[in-house]
């Protein structure tokens, strides 16, 4: 009989762990700051998780030289990206290793990510030949071209959007025609969750609490 009671205890603990996952996500969706970002999805397939679309944002690839804040990051480091609402969309303006103490304003938010890759860009401009150059150019906000700095590939935990089987292709088409964006909810600690998927300016799917 004691073992049977233990089994019930295990069930309670495991349901508690799952419940915490759900509760944490619900809090973000309910109270997080809404941030709309344009995306570039592709359509792979996962064995166990059905169809999903990989979402790549402009802030998924950042260069330390074009942004304020900290410059030193390594693979797997936490990074807090400061986003400011521009005239058209939210833009990254700074990178920090720790969450800044300054409270975010309505038009400012810090998103927590993790450095997936980090590599240096050469300061020396690649020689231009008849064949051209393979070195990618980075456009600074002021229009100058810069090839230096630390190039960061960042994951925010909102790179997958699960869709019913077969619908990934339609979303990929929307991507190809630049018709898609995502509305994120960002919590005060920087954790982001997908709140809405927007296609052609219309809400394609909204995440309800239940």
């Amino acid at each position, binding site marked *: *009989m004691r073992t049977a009671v233990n*089994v019930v205890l*295990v069930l309670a603990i495991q*349901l508690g762990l799952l419940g915490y996952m*759900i509760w944490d996500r619900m809090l973000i969706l309910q109270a997080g700051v809404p941030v709309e970002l344009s995306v570039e999805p592709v359509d792979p397939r996962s064995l166990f998780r*059905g169809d999903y679309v990989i979402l790549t944002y402009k802030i998924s690839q950042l260069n330390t030289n074009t942004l304020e804040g900290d410059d030193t990051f390594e693979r797997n480091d936490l990074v807090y990206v400061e986003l400011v609402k521009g005239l058209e969309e939210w833009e990254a303006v700074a990178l920090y290793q720790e969450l800044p103490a300054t409270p975010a304003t309505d038009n400012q938010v810090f998103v927590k990510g993790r450095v997936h890759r980090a590599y240096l860009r050469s300061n020396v401009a690649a020689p231009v030949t008849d064949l051209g150059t393979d070195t990618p150019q980075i456009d600074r906000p002021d229009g100058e071209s810069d090839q230096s700095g630390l190039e960061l590939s960042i994951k925010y935990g*909102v790179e997958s959007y*699960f869709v019913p089987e077969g619908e990934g292709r339609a979303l990929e088409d929307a991507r190809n025609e630049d018709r898609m964006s995502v509305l994120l909810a960002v919590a005060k600690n920087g954790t982001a*969750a997908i709140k809405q998927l927007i296609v052609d300016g219309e809400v394609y799917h909204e995440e309800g609490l239940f």
Partner: protein
Amino acid sequence: MRRGAYIRQLKRDIEAWIAASVITPQQAEEMLRTAGPPETRQSIPFILAMLGAILLAFGAMTYVAANWQGLGKLERLIILGGTMTATYATAAVLFARAMPAYAQAAVLLGTALFGVNIMLVGQTYHMSAQWPDGILLWAVGTAIAALVVPSRPALALAILLFGLWSFGVTSLTDDPHLPYAIPFVVLLTAAWIWKWRAGLHLLAISFLVWSAINLAFFVANRDWDETHLFTLYVLIAVAIFGFTKIRSKYVFETALTRYGLFALFFSFFLLQLSGGAKETEMGWLIMVGVFASFCTLAIVLALISDNLRLMDAGVLIALALLAIAAPYLIEKGGYVAQYAYSAFYIGLTVWAVDYGLENDDRFFVNLAFTAFGIEVLWIYFTTFSTLLDQAIFFIVGGLILIVSAVVLERVRRQLLTADGGES
């Protein structure tokens, strides 16, 4: 000798002793009683129940992949909690009705469903955190089930999941993952207290694999050569083998010694394939010093406890010294040095056969012959492939393999038969 095999052998001997009037039937009964009941075997229904649980778990995963889109979020969450609750409730009822085998199967299914539910919650809320985080949560929940119920199948799953988690973190960060030690010690303690041999085997294998992978990442981060890595492997293997012999007649002694032997063969085989090293850093020398100290300590303690022959100690010391010198010798000696190390490897197989015969352990003999066969194959493929044209290469190779197989098997049987006859 395994306990079940020992009891069966004892029964055969007792019948012969009774027939020869060496002992009376009453004495025979007393002997069998003191030897204890035969080793309990897992019943067929238990095995079927476990396989059924595993199949149901895979079915649940497939269902998640194929049918989730037809359900609303709340419905999905209800199904999640409902299936898990029903499974654990079934386990509780089965325990209460004294059907532990089926109850354990239900617990295993419950832990598997817990993992499926983590994936499904992640999918429902579009979470794409680093995958080892999800595995860690699954492993923690499974370990809790294993320890609280308690459940051996859940413990086995937890061992695998924590190993997978550690590998995931290592592959993402490219760094050795030391926090793995925490769950490892907890699970090891549980398996040790329960005296669960299968669990201890699983933990021993997990630890060997974890050590090999993490040391490889450690060496790679420092841009050391592969020979440096394999030298450390050999030293660790020598230390493991030595430490297994510092006491005699303890639980798991035979198994640990066999793991030590396997580690010796595996590591030295890799070492003889490597190409030496141009430079050696102080950091590597310090590590060699530390591991060599462990080897020395283990060998000295084993000799003091009279559980290791002088010849065995000599072989272990020789292996350690050859490993330490390998980066320099192989680099300078080239092919000659590599063939010399191949010869040493074959010498290792000869020693293992001798050790196996001396200690009545057929595993040593069989592993030594397997290792010898693999070495012969490697030498053949790496040398004659450049000397002979393709057709002759395969014909000659085939003939050599067949003749070698027949000869080796005959020698092995003769050795084991001769040893059995003497004892």
